[in-house]
């Protein structure tokens, strides 16, 4: 059974169609790249896959649950999403942010602290999120996904803002996910990188699959 299967998915916001008739299947262990011009609907499609945005028409199954049923809630803890904005709490320190998340997903505080060390933020752990640089916040976001070990990994331009050392965190995240048998979707404008690191590439254009 595929981890994710979308058939004829359309999303409208008000009068405006954002996605039109997307068909897509994602098998266990498969990682695909998602590219396309600005405004073509990559982020919007990722939101549908993350079960956070309900399609206007079409049907989908994610991790065995149909998208339009309330039971979809059950699979959410197995979905890992890195969005444009990591959504940290500005007043909390980096450590507090990661520990809160660890508590919610049932990991220990020690695991959280160790992960923060692994992404290279040990010395900055007591800095508030709003006093951390853009790249530092992105690293916390990656630490969160490394802790979570999801079955469906969704990365929206996760490379952006990371320095050359921490870019490998993203690659490692994808590799681990693959070996765990999870599926992955990597959104990026860097075609060369996608070709290298993903199994196949899907190009969106104006809300439709172009390739």
């Amino acid at each position, binding site marked *: 059974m595929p981890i994710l299967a979308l058939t004829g998915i359309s999303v409208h*916001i008000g009068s405006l*169609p954002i996605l039109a008739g997307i068909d897509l299947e994602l098998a266990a262990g498969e990682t695909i790249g998602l590219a396309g*011009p600005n*405004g*073509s*609907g990559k982020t919007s499609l990722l939101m549908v896959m993350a079960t956070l945005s*309900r399609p206007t028409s079409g049907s989908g199954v994610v991790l065995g649950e149909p998208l339009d049923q309330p039971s979809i809630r059950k699979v959410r803890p197995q979905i890992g999403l890195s969005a444009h904005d990591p959504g940290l709490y500005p007043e909390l320190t980096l450590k507090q942010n990661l520990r809160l998340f660890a508590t919610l997903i049932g990991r220990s505080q020690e695991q959280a602290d160790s992960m923060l060390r692994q992404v290279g933020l040990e010395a900055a752990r007591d800095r508030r999120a709003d006093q951390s640089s853009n790249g530092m916040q992105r690293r916390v976001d990656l630490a969160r996904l490394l802790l979570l070990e999801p079955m469906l990994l969704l990365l929206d331009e996760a490379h952006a803002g990371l320095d050359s050392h921490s870019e490998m965190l993203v690659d490692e995240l994808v590799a681990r996910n693959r070996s765990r048998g999870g599926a992955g979707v990597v959104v990026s404008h860097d075609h060369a990188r996608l070709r290298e690191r993903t199994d196949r590439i899907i190009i969106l254009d*104006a*809300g439709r699959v172009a390739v």
Partner: protein
Amino acid sequence: MRRSILPLLALATAGIGFWLASTTAPDAVQGDYARIFHVHVPSSWIAFVAFGITAFGSLMWLWRRHQRWDRLAAGSAEIGVIFTAASLLTGALWGKPVWGTFWDWGDARLASTALMFFVYLGYLALRRATLDPVARAKRSAVLGMVAVVQVPLVYFSVNLWRSLHQTQTIRPDGASMGSEMIRAFLVNLLAFNVVYVALLVSRVRLAKEWERRDAREMATAGAAVTAPRLEPT
């Protein structure tokens, strides 16, 4: 052609109602002021009906998730606000000659009406603030539900307070009405109901048409973004 039957019917009954209301004999005590009765009471009645329908639409939306229920709830709330305003306005205008004041804080019904008015203004403001129709339907259905539970409590608490206090309450209670007046009133009540239904039907139809127009095959959002092409300076 069937589309125009309801509005015509509404117009006709309203016309007859208006004619009857203006030609019945003036009230023994209040004179011509009593004629406000024919607008005030039906408006108040429709206000309640409209908000009842909004609550019903909200609950049905939460249960069935069909946009039809959201259109019903929204249309009815808009019309309800208008009739509530009419009730407040005519009540206040009537109060001045009858009670000597526009507003009397001693009556629970007045305060509750005004608060209900605001609750539904808030409801409409929430709708206006939310752009996406589905998100809008969800949010307003939840608020519609909160309002259904809370508005009766508002009425109940205001009433409890005032009745326990035995204030100088002047409750609106009409003098005995003549049969002619009752007949005029019943016609007006009917007219208001028909007008409400006609407005609601056309409002819902309009909303549906908007949505249909929106659903027409049109270029996707992304088509509006093209590759940049700089002109030489």
